[in-house]
Every structure is written in structure tokens, then in C-alpha cells.
């Protein structure tokens, strides 16, 4: 059952990177900030989860909760350091990018100084169980990753669709100028957005460290993949990011299977370039009809 195995791997990878991509996408479209500090948020949440796992308890909920909470805190830190001081200054887009990148780099060095270069690993929060489903063996870890990301995504999207703060965030995504006219405070909404997207990245970090390790620079690859999936899906669209994440997850799993892990980034970027050549604004234009009106 090679194909099934490839597809399961693809979905697992897509679930994790999709979370980051959606976080990148929401931040960009509501705050106009390309947040390159997700690498920092990622490591921050990972180390927080690791600290809880080694110092407090190995309870899976506690570990995942610590990661999510630390991610939200890291998001708020970035909002306070970058978004609030810079958002109404000229050339905010490029300044914001440089400032968040700086935080990411400084953060990595601080982690290197505090925790040392040795990688840390989290305990298995989903256990080692296996489920036989026809001929396919599903490990608890993979099911857990997919279920957790989808739950997080559903919670985030439902909150954005039904709550008042979500309405404010969506209004700001569509027209920041009009949002201030209807009395939506840009800076306060910025805090909500950064906390929400930080929490998403925090969960992604805990999930990814089920497979990989936590290290000072471990956030770099997820950041690159998250940003490129967000671009490929069309910035500002949740559906687009989901489609792009599945597409690129499939590419990653197929490349791993038939060519080898070292070619993953190459094939992924080739696909992204292809998509952007055909649809310069990303995939989302296909599904989000009211977007460009």
C-alpha cells in the first residue's frame, strides 16, 4: 500500500504546514505584516513545551497547552515590539519584515545561548498505538497530528466567523481604512490577531516536534514552508492555504518516496513557481469569488 502511505504522510505534513501558512496568511491580510518571526514563535513554543515536559509533567494536554499558550505569548511579544510601534510609519511592510526577521535571528541566538546547540525532543504525546485500517497501518501520532490541526483550524475559523472580535479581524482583512472608520481599533485587533496566529504556530510546533527535534534554528524550515504555502494559496485566503498545503504536502511525500529527502525543497519550490506562473495571486482566486471585487 505504497500510495496510501504516501497520501497519509502528505496529509500529516500538510496539516502542520497548513496551520503555519494560515497563520501567515491571516497576519498578512489583516495587519499588512509579513511576519518572518514565526521561526522564533516556533522555537519559543517548542522550548516552552519541552520545559513543561521535563520540569512539570508529561501530561500530553499540558504539553500541547503549554506550546499553544507560549505561541500566543510570543505572538503578543512580536505585536508589542513590531506592530504597535511601526504600523503607522511609512514603508511599514518592509520595516515590519526586517524587524520580525531581526527578532527571529536574535531569538535563535538567545535560544542557542540558553539551551545550547543540542536538540531536545518531546515525549510522544499521542502514544505509540497503531490502528489497522484495511491494509493500511495508521500510527496514533499521525492521526493525532491531523485531528489536532483540523480541530485548531475549525476552532479558529469558527471563532473568526461567529465572534465579534472575529468580525473585527475579518473587517480589517478586507479594508483596514474602513475598519478604523467603523470604530475598530487597529492596535487592539493586532493583539488578537497575533495571539491567535501565534497559538496556531505554537500548536504546529508541538505537532512537528513529534517527528523532528526542537533546536534553536528548528523554526526556519517551517517558516519558509509556511510563507511559501501562504503565497501559493493566495495571501488572505484560508481555503487557498488549505488547498496549497495539501498540494505541497503531496509533493513533499512523493519526493521523499521517489527521489529522496534532499530534493523536497527543490520540487516544492518548482511547484510553487508553476502555480504562481499560472495564477499570480495564488490558488485562492478559484474559490474566493468576492475577494477581488
Amino acid at each position, binding site marked *: 500500500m505504497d500510495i496510501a502511505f504516501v497520501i497519509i504522510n502528505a496529509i500529516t505534513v500538510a496539516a502542520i504546514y497548513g496551520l503555519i501558512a494560515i497563520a501567515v496568511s491571516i497576519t498578512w491580510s489583516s495587519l499588512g505584516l509579513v511576519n518572518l518571526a514565526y521561526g522564533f514563535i516556533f522555537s519559543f513554543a517548542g522550548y516552552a513545551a519541552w520545559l513543561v515536559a521535563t520540569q512539570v509533567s508529561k501530561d500530553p494536554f499540558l504539553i500541547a497547552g503549554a506550546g499553544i499558550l507560549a505561541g500566543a505569548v510570543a505572538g503578543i511579544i512580536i505585536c508589542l515590539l513590531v506592530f504597535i510601534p511601526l504600523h503607522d510609519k511609512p514603508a511599514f511592510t518592509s520595516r515590519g519584515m526586517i524587524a520580525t526577521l531581526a527578532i527571529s535571528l536574535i531569538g535563535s541566538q538567545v535560544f542557542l545561548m540558553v539551551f545550547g546547540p543540542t536538540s531536545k525532543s518531546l515525549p510522544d504525546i499521542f502514544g505509540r498505538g497503531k490502528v489497522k485500517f484495511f491494509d493500511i497501518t495508521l500510527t496514533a501520532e499521525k492521526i493525532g497530528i491531523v485531528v489536532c490541526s483540523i480541530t485548531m483550524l475549525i476552532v479558529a475559523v469558527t471563532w473568526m466567523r461567529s465572534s465579534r472580535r472575529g*468580525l473585527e479581524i*475579518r473587517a480589517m482583512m*478586507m479594508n483596514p*481604512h474602513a475598519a*478604523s*472608520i*467603523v470604530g475598530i481599533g*487597529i492596535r487592539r485587533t493586532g493583539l488578537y490577531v497575533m495571539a491567535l496566529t501565534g497559538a496556531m504556530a505554537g500548536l504546529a510546533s508541538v505537532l512537528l516536534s513529534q517527528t523532528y527535534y526542537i533546536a534553536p534554528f528548528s523554526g526556519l524550515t517551517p517558516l519558509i514552508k509556511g510563507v511559501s504555502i501562504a503565497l501559493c494559496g493566495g495571501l488572505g485566503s484560508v481555503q487557498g492555504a488549505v488547498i496549497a498545503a495539501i498540494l505541497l504536502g503531496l509533493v513533499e511525500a512523493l519526493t521523499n518516496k521517489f527521489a529522496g529527502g534532499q530534493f523536497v525543497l527543490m520540487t516544492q519550490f518548482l511547484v510553487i513557481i508553476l502555480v504562481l506562473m499560472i495564477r499570480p495571486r495564488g490558488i485562492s482566486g478559484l474559490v474566493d469569488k468576492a475577494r477581488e471585487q
Partner: protein
Amino acid sequence: MTEVLKIEGLSAGYGPLRVIHDLDLVIHPGERVGIVGLNGHGKTTLFYAIAGLTGWQRGSILLNGRQIGRTRSQGAGRYTHQIVRQGLAIMPQGDEIFHGLTVEEHLDSGAFTPEAWRTRKARKERVLDIFEPLRKLMKTPVGRLSGGERRMVSIGRGLMTDAKLYLSDEPSLGLAPKLGIAVMEALLAIDLKDSAMFIAEQNVALLEGKVDRIIGMHAGKLKGEASSSFRLSGSH
């Protein structure tokens, strides 16, 4: 009674450009004031200055006796939401609108005070009584509406909270004449109580006889004022 709006020595503009020159203006409670003038003479900039959305500004602006004008050289829109929360309802020019939100969500977004949010159902009903055609469009994204319907949404959104001052920037712009008249009539029929309405318009005929005062604007300054008995010469 304090004036709803009292502007003294207001200058405003964008970068090196100065659009409004030392302007003074007073609007009293219950008044409907029209401001007419050609394109590019500062009507919209005056509205933006009241809302704190210009590039820079200086001078005093009192909204219901509270200072909302600031001397500043940058940070357009930084304080707009606070000014809006003090009782300013802005119905902007054109379609400054959230295209992906439905009509209902759009109206909800106008109810930003806690009190308005709790009573938003009744408030939406009130808006729908004024703009009957919106009733069956509540679940439609605003991006799919026609120009006239969008304008109704935009004005209706401004009516979702109890403002002290309603700023309506060219409510008839870009609409078919018949529709423009209907929108303007609905706007002027709103019960103001002790708040005030300030309407910018290029088509003087739409305002004449229906507002308490008409002020002319030319090259960033107020020029001439006419009372409600004002008639366009030759129209009668």
C-alpha cells in the same frame, strides 16, 4: 447647549500639500448642514480631518465639547477609532466597504459600542425599515450588490450607533438620478434628536430647501452661506 461640532483654525493636508486653510465652522444640535463645492476643493479632506485621517493637521476640533483635533504630522488614522467612539458616524464617499462580509455582518460591524452591540437586532430592524430593499439581501456578500444597494449598506451601517454627528460624503455620487434622490431622502428623513448631520454634495439641487444651511467650499476655505430659504436661481 454645546455645539455638536466647533472647528477653529483648522489646516490639514497630505505631505507638502495643504488642502484646508485656517477653516472655522460651527454646527449646532439638530442641524442638517450641506456643504457644496467642486471636486478637489477639500470637502472630503475636511471630513477626513474631523476623523483624524489626513496626513497632517493642526487646529482645534471640538466634538460635543471634547477636543478631537490634534496637531500632528503623521499617523493618519491612528486615533480614528477613538474619535468614532466619541460619537462620530462616517458614511464615506464611494464604496469604502468590506466586500466579503454579508450585509448583516456589515451592519453588525457598525454597532461597535457595547450598548449598540446588545441591541443590534432592533437597530438592524430600524435600518431595514429605512432601506427596505436590503431586507432580502441580508445574507449576500456586499461585494455582489449594486452601487445603490452598497450605498444603502454604507449609510445604514452609520446609523447602527447613536452618533452625535453624522458625516455623509456625497451620498448620491455615482448613482442613477432617481436612486440618488431616494437615498438622499432617506438620509434626510432620519430623526436627528440633538445630534447633527453634515452632508457633502456636488448636486446642490438635491439639498436645496431640505437642509438648514448650505455652505460653499472653495480652495480649502468656506465661501458663502445660505439658509434653508435658499433656492437655486432659475429653478423656480
